[in-house]
């Protein structure tokens, strides 16, 4: 017996050490110079925490080995094989698996005899948050990888949304169930119903959200998986789970808030209202004409430009154009042009999406600038090249008060001397708002696949 107590003391000491390492690891991840080390440190902390837990195991070792080896193999394979453009959906998928693990942990605890009232509450909360994280992340994965095309307004979406609202009273019921069942007869399989309802609720939670709101959802789901882990820690009385889980929960929350701010919207508005219900603005019917341009003409203008600002968006990711964009940037620099990249915080489908893609293409991050850095000097820019971005450069956000995106901070490319917009067609962006930028006097539209169009410009430069 004394031996067992000793093991627990050792375990708790190691847990404290790894908690400190997690904290330092996250801190280091937040600085460019130390980020790589920070990730190693946090991985080492994970190794210690897992290793020391193995000193006292109740589960069959075969099950553990099989689970860890198989899971490690699957996880590593996905992580090594995944293309950099598919990172958002991968993060969503891994996140969902973490949520599923906490969901299963709480389920297993429910099957244990003699849970106290408080434990019962914690079990239900962990199942709820873990389950929503899991199924919600799967839906986010489906949407980001474009395997799932259901959106707001479809019949199926509406059914799942009602499950989401139904799940809240159900949660209250299952939490109170032990005390209710003394007075009224128990619903026989209430627990299994709750499990299924929770998963359906996660689907209903994420299904109606889409497109440009995805960065917010991804970071929110990330936060939820941490909170679920922290609750599981309370349930199992394990301090490292609590510390690591709350760190993740808090960091995810901060990112969510940063993303929401970058869109000038509240989190509740993004989650439960969406763009569609904003007042329809049709004030600017008189749009005028767009002025198309060919790659040849674009090349001639670029050749004489002394400063160029590239503004990438989700379209660049879809077209996988980041490498040709970098090539064009280098050729421009050789030609004596000053090149910068204007990165909007919510461009793309996850926080920092454009930064990752440009880093993959070897664009030095000294060249990347945020909206506040580039907007004041925009009128000195000769050419702003918008590649597959739409809402983040829509001047309505600053000029047209009735617009659904009014107030959202944008990159004000319309103040540049010339604007090239690379676009596949004239369809409006995710917000469904027409973009007056396309009809401006100083705007030229370069229609077609971004990768091809830029490829042609690059070829002209090389000639």
């Amino acid at each position, binding site marked *: 017996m004394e031996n067992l107590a000793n093991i627990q003391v050792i375990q708790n000491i190691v847990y404290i050490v790894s908690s400190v390492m997690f904290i330092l690891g996250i801190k280091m*991840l*937040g*600085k460019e110079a130390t*980020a790589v080390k920070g*990730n190693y440190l*946090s991985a080492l902390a*994970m190794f210690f925490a897992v290793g020391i837990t193995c000193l006292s*195991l109740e589960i*069959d070792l075969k*099950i*553990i080995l099989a*689970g860890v080896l*198989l*899971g*490690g193999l*699957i*996880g590593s394979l*996905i*992580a*090594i094989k*995944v293309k950099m453009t598919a*990172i958002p959906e991968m*993060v969503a998928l*891994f996140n969902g*698996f*973490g949520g599923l*693990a*906490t969901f*299963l*942990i709480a389920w*297993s605890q429910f099957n244990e005899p003699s849970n106290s009232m408080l434990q019962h509450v914690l079990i239900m909360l962990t199942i709820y948050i873990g389950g929503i994280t899991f199924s919600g992340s799967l839906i986010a994965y489906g949407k980001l990888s474009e395997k799932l095309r259901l959106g707001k307004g479809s019949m199926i979406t509406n059914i799942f949304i009602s499950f989401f609202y139904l799940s809240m009273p159900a949660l209250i019921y299952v939490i109170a169930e032990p005390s209710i069942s003394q007075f009224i007869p128990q619903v026989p399989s209430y627990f299994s119903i709750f499990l299924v309802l929770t998963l359906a609720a996660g689907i209903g939670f994420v299904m109606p959200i889409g497109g440009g709101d995805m960065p917010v959802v991804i*970071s929110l789901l*990330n936060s939820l998986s*941490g909170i679920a*882990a922290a609750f*599981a820690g*309370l349930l*199992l*009385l394990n301090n*490292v*789970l*609590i*510390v690591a*889980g*709350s760190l*993740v*929960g*808090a*960091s995810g929350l*901060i*990112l969510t808030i940063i993303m929401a701010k970058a869109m000038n919207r509240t989190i509740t508005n993004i989650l439960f209202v969406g763009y569609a219900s904003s007042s329809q603005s049709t004030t600017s019917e008189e749009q005028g004409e767009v002025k198309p341009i060919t790659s040849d003409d674009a090349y001639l203008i670029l050749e004489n430009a002394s400063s160029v600002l590239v503004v990438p968006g989700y379209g660049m990711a879809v077209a996988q154009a980041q490498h040709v964009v970098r090539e064009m940037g280098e050729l421009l620099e050789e030609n004596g042009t000053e090149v910068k990249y204007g990165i909007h*915080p919510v461009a793309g489908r996850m*926080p*920092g999406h454009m*930064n*990752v893609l440009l*880093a993959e293409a*070897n664009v030095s*991050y000294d060249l990347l600038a*945020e909206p506040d850095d580039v907007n004041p000097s925009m009128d000195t820019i000769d050419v702003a090249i918008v590649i597959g971005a739409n809402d983040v450069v829509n001047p309505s956000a600053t000029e047209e008060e009735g617009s659904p995106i009014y107030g959202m901070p944008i990159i004000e490319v319309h103040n540049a001397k010339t604007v090239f917009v690379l676009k596949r067609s004239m369809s409006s962006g995710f917000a469904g708002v027409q973009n007056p930028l396309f009809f401006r006097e100083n705007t030229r539209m370069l229609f077609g696949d971004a990768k091809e169009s830029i490829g042609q410009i690059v070829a002209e430069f090389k000639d």
Partner: protein
Amino acid sequence: MEIYILLGFVLLLSIFLGLELIAKVPSTLHTPLMSGANAISGIALVGALMLSSAGQMQDILAFGAILFASINVFGGYLVTNRMLSMFKKK
């Protein structure tokens, strides 16, 4: 009950610490940070290892929890590392 108050205290302090830690991170690092945090949420693996096995159902649940938490841990750290290696200065 005392232990819950103590652990609740740890929970609250960790949340505040987390909020302070992340408040000022350059947007370049948003994705690696999120992905790194995501790997840390694989700490659920520790919880999964603490489960007890009594009967087939519990074994299946434990196996599932260990499997999925492991995917989260290994995948999360590797993807983060891959991403960060691209950010290296030339």
